């Protein structure tokens, strides 16, 4: 890729909207010279299904036929339907091929002349594709995540350069406030309010942190967004930096996501090279630097004060709030912490205005939300819908329902702090308030579908085991309470519990919920409380009849008590 002529004079630095336009035009020209572009998904799911080999064989096939000049084979991003990996998209036309093997390369290249390969074709008119609203994933994986020019060609960095060159920091915050955007990490705190608190704090140094420690088991939206649109996350952080008067940002990302780490590091280098990160962005006084910090496998580090301790190089122990990080955060300075998806929403808000964003969603929950749909559902993968969409629509229309003739039992949202929502509430709209009233939690967006083969007591035990293991040990209610609750749940699943144990479990839920220091402990009882609320009959079947209705704790109709030792 050649850098546009007049940018050379500025060492490839992009300093105004005209520069972006030049690059976008150059890209459009390149695109118009190509007859076809083939995108091979390079997300984690597709890579595990050898999509790198598919990319290789497609590239080889094109070059042996001498078609490089008119057909570009390039790595792309997630298409969403990870269950059918590896996925390949052919543009123009948008044919989506699923389950592509390296040996299919010849047929795919043949198809450019003869018409789509029917046996690999995925029906993109299915509700899975048509019922989604793509905003966070608006580029549908059709940009190469490792090329900044690809991102600029689809409108990238217009938001940042508009903010820096045309808006005051106050105006930026106003737009974010008007958009009604709320924190996508789960709690739903209004983003504009958080920003203005940090902006008002007086300090020579402020920090912007991107929380990419997506620890909820069953959630992979942030991973996908970081892998596919790393530049947009950085753009959102830089806009935040400008609005708040911060010069340093950190992306705290899980070490379990090696591809996301690689992509974000590469994106930081790319943005720096083009002057979109670093000193004097757009030749103004505004400077903003970003560094990556790796997590090391501690769930509690998703909690903001624990995350700060971890960036400071210590154990990830949470601290009591107040003071909130907005006043005293990283190294005692005012700090903004937002989730990956929150930052991803910023650039389009600045580009299109806060009012545009506020039109999407419900009265109190604006915009869209990505969900990681998994478990006992036909179409597993990444989906994005406007807030206010019903659970039924996501699970049955988009997700295609429960496979193999099984019956839907519950959907778990919100990770270990969330709850299980039963069939009778499937028509509830998904927004922060209604999920909370159902005893669950928005969380970062994991959505795990369970059918009649899942035992709800076992699920509660699974989450309690998770919380007991991941408890940092700082406060006693969480450290000791979760272990006690796990022990009781263990007794229930082995048929050794009495009704007194159940009463104690309920009492402990209350105690741990209201006396724990941070969100981990406060949320830990939720899976138990919600399963007790909707599936008490299953608890009773275990305790009184010693049976597991789902056949998980023991075979169906079998006594769940361990056989007595015969020796």
């Amino acid at each position, binding site marked *: 890729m050649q850098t546009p002529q007049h940018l050379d004079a500025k060492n490839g630095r992009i300093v105004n909207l005209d520069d972006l336009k030049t690059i976008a035009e150059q890209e459009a020209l390149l695109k118009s010279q190509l007859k076809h572009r083939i995108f091979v998904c390079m997300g984690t799911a597709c890579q*595990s299904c050898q999509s790198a080999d598919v990319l290789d064989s497609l590239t080889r096939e094109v070059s042996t036929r001498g078609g490089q000049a008119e057909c570009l084979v390039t790595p792309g991003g997630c298409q969403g339907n990870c269950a059918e990996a590896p996925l390949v998209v052919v543009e123009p036309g948008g044919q989506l091929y699923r389950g592509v093997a390296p040996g299919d390369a010849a047929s795919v290249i043949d198809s450019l002349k003869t018409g789509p390969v029917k046996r690999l074709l995925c029906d993109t008119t299915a509700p899975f594709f048509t019922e989604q609203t793509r905003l966070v994933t608006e580029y549908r994986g059709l940009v190469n995540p490792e090329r900044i020019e690809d991102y600029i060609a689809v409108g990238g960095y217009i938001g940042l350069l508009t903010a820096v060159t045309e808006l005051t920091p106050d105006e930026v915050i106003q737009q974010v406030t008007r958009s009604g955007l709320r924190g996508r990490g789960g709690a739903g705190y209004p983003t504009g309010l958080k920003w203005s608190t940090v902006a008002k704090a007086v300090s020579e140094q402020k920090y912007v942190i991107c929380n990419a420690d997506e620890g909820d*088991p069953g959630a992979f939206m942030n991973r996908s967004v970081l892998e596919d649109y790393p530049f947009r996350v950085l753009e959102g952080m830089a806009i935040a930096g400008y609005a708040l008067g911060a010069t340093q940002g950190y992306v705290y990302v899980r070490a379990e996501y090696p591809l996301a780490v690689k992509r974000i590091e590469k994106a930081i280098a790319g943005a720096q090279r083009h002057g979109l990160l670093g000193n004097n962005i757009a030749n103004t006084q505004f400077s903003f630097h970003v560094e990556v910090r790796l997590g090391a496998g501690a769930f509690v580090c998703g909690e903001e004060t624990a995350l700060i301790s971890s960036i400071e190089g210590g154990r990830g122990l949470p601290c009591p709030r107040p003071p909130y990080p907005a006043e005293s955060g990283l190294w005692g300075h005012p700090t903004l912490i937002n989730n990956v998806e929150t930052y991803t929403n910023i650039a389009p808000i600045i580009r299109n205005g806060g009012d545009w964003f506020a039109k999407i969603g419900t009265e109190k929950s604006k915009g869209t939300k990505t969900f*990681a749909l998994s*478990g006992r559902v036909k179409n597993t993968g990444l989906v994005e819908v406007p807030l206010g969409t019903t659970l039924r629509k996501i699970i049955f229309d988009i997700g295609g329902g429960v496979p193999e003739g099984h019956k839907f039992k519950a959907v778990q949202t919100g990770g270990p702090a969330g709850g299980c929502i039963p069939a009778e509430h499937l028509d509830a709209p998904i927004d922060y308030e209604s999920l909370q009233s159902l005893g669950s939690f928005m969380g970062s967006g994991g959505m795990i579908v*369970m059918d009649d083969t899942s035992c709800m007591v076992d699920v509660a035990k699974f989450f309690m085991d998770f919380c007991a293991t991941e408890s940092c040990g700082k406060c006693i209610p969480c450290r000791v309470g979760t272990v006690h609750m796990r022990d009781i749940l263990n007794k229930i699943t082995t048929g050794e519990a009495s009704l007194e144990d159940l009463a104690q479990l309920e009492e402990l839920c209350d105690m741990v919920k209201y006396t724990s220091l941070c969100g981990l402990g406060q949320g830990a009882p939720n899976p138990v409380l919600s399963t007790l609320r909707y599936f008490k009959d299953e608890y009773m079947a275990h305790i009184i009849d010693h049976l597991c209705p789902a056949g998980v704790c023991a075979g169906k109709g079998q006594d769940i008590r361990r056989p007595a030792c015969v020796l």
Partner: protein
Amino acid sequence: MNSAAPSLPSSSQNVVAAPSDDKRWRIVGATMRRYGFAPSALIETLHTVQNSFGYLDTQSLRFVARSLKVPLSKAYGVATFYGIFRLKPHGEHTCVICTGTACHIKGAAKLLATIDRCANIRDAETTKDNKLSLVTARCFGACGIAPAAIVDGQVIGNLSPETMEELVRRCLKS
């Protein structure tokens, strides 16, 4: 890591001498230099040590603690707090089984039982012949293809106990 005696830091320079002339210490040194030997670089440095040597031993913890001027107790505290760090080396092959919610629902426990049956190891254990180590992970985000595992760095999805058995047998043989 070989067991050459760690040299004491000389008072004239700030940089602590590496425990041995193993070239991998240079990579560790480079990480610490990049962060200006700040105490906050502890986690990043331990990542580098583990990536270079495979695990963290007392000698490396001592070296990193001295170099970054943090108490050894803090380095040890961090190394044991975070799930990713290990204080013992892994076997020739490593199998990470995801035990996240989606994998749990789709039968991760059966995969663990299969490994226990075939290789007689449980979570965080290594076979006696040092061929295979088993680790469980709290979700690595491959929920779309659950149940999933990472065998020697390669993510493998939609696993059945049968495929798992084949993978384990292959690791044990090679």
